[in-house]
């Protein structure tokens, strides 16, 4: 989805909902659209309007009118639509990883955790504080592992158990210390909830990443494993901590 299309969708929603909703409710509805609406088809429109109606007690008659109004608004020329409400949506919003869809310059093809919603977003929400508090090498490693795992969960979910068993099989073969092995084992017990901040030396973190890569090769195949790892490194490279510790040192 292009940035422009997302902007038009917001502007159309703003146009049709602003006469009905107060400001807070309107912002909530716009955020809901940003998070949940995935296309401009009739079913997408109906689904979105239904959600807004339920959340903000819009009656059935108005709801039916909104279906048509929103559909028509999406077809209107840009010049007839209000300004993009994106800046309004940013006010009071907690810092979220939504920059990928913000009207900012298009980033290079990097798959960040944020772009792998909803699984990745849930993972992101689980542990930012832990990552922020970690040393740069551990924070970067955590981001790399979480991004890679998020991509696996999104595109290769059926391979998760094989991936997990593949990592655990290697765990005792490498030169990892006992505490690091325990942390990795604990993380793999609940991979979605884990923060993936591993308290190890850079060499140990590199070994953890390598074991993850080998398991990905076996579970997904080497081509997918290479692609996932490359994208995860690029995502981790976007972190401020990457200026102090490059994720390339982990591979």
């Amino acid at each position, binding site marked *: 989805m292009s940035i422009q299309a997302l902007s038009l969708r917001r502007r159309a929603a703003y146009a049709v909902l602003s006469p009905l909703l107060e400001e807070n409710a309107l912002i909530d509805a716009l955020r809901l659209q940003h998070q949940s609406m995935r296309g401009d088809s009739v079913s997408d429109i109906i689904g979105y309007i239904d959600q807004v109606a339920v959340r903000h007690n819009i009656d059935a008659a108005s709801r039916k009118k909104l279906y048509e109004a929103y559909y028509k608004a999406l077809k209107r020329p840009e010049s007839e639509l209000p300004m993009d409400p994106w800046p309004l949506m940013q006010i009071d919003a907690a810092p979220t990883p939504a920059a990928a869809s913000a009207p900012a310059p298009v980033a290079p093809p990097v798959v960040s955790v944020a772009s792998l919603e909803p699984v990745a977003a849930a993972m992101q929400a689980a542990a930012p504080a832990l990552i922020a508090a970690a040393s740069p090498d551990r924070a970067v490693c955590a981001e790399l592992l979480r991004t890679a795992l998020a991509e696996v969960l999104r595109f290769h979910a059926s391979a998760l158990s094989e991936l997990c068993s593949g990592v655990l099989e290697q765990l005792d073969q490498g030169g990892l210390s006992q505490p690091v092995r325990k942390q990795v084992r604990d993380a793999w017990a609940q991979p979605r909830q884990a923060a993936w901040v591993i308290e190890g030396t850079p060499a140990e973190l590199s070994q953890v990443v390598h074991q993850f890569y080998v398991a990905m090769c*076996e579970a997904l*195949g080497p081509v997918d494993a290479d692609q996932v790892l490359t994208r995860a490194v690029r995502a981790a490279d976007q972190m401020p901590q990457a200026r102090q510790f490059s994720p390339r040192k982990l591979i």
Partner: protein
Amino acid sequence: MNELINLVWVGICTALVFFMQAGFALVEGGLSRAKNSINVIMKIYLGTCFIGVIFWAVGYGLAFGPSVEGLIGGGSFAPQKLGATDAVGLLYQMMFATTAVTIVSGAVAERMRYSAYLAFAALMGLVIYPTYAHWAWNTGGWLRQMGFIDLAGDGAVHSVGAWCALAGLLALGPRLGRFGKNGEVRDIPGHNLPMVALGGFILWLGWFGFNGGSISGVESGQMGTVLLNTYLGGCAGGIGALAFMRLTGRPVLMSATVNGSLAGLVALTAGAATMNPLTAMVTGLIAGALATWGAEALRARRIDDTVDAIAVHGVGGTWGLLAAGLFFEGDMFNGSRLMVQALGAIAAFAWAFPMAYACFKLVDKLIGLRAPTLNEQRGLDYTEHHEIGYPEFQDSPGQMHKET
């Protein structure tokens, strides 16, 4: 005058066969992933250097020196004073030895230690290749004396190279993640198919030297037939691969088409001088189809041949040896000749495979055969050579050093 013309012709053919190393480098480099492409090409490059020295010092004497009971040569080691014809002849044979060894490099690509490959290449150039070459080509060689037909090394170069490669693959194992736990085959596409196509054309060109230089002399009248048959073999091989893929409902792959034409050329290496154009085409056609089938059959048995060298040189080569007996112009389908050819094909496997396997195991014990999985992750270009092929698109070592 004829001698001078022959000398020039063999010199040209030597250059053509040498140029085949560039073809191999392009095919094998292109069929490897970008992170391993330099490694594959370096193996070919330094393998060429090693084999040149080894073959001059020892290999030539073992292959073409005075025969000891038809089994091995026992003289002409490290020759110093050679006439022009002998010197060019040695050089020409050196190119064949190099080609045989290079066949192995592509098959084992992307997971074998560089030093281990060079050690094996030296052993192969020292013992495995010259011994079979002696049997097949030395006037006192036992196969040659039985009437074995192998014009330009279908058995000595291609079959021996392929069976050595098979031994290497069994000793090494597949690349990381090549086969799934349930037996599924994961594709690992090469990083540059245009390179593969260019390499295919260069190899095809080189084959004119491969077969053309192996005739008994320009005056023999064989040259035209050999060159024509060689070319037709390559054409028919590509068509055979195409037919196999189309008739079995598979997608028509460029890499398989190139390999099909190479298999056709391999198959003509034995009998290009003793076939007519029609039987040459039939030979190439069947070789192309067989190689395409063989590549899949090997993968189904979890044998991970990066460039399908065994299918092209082993399957195509074995068929070519048999075809040379079947389609001998003027005496087709002669059973006894076919038996001799079959014996030569079996001897190639029975000699090369166990010897190569033993050599690989020896090298494994001494210096380690398989690159660590961390090197597979990082790519052998960086870990073995500290150079990468595509710094604009890969994380370069220089970048890493700067950051540290």
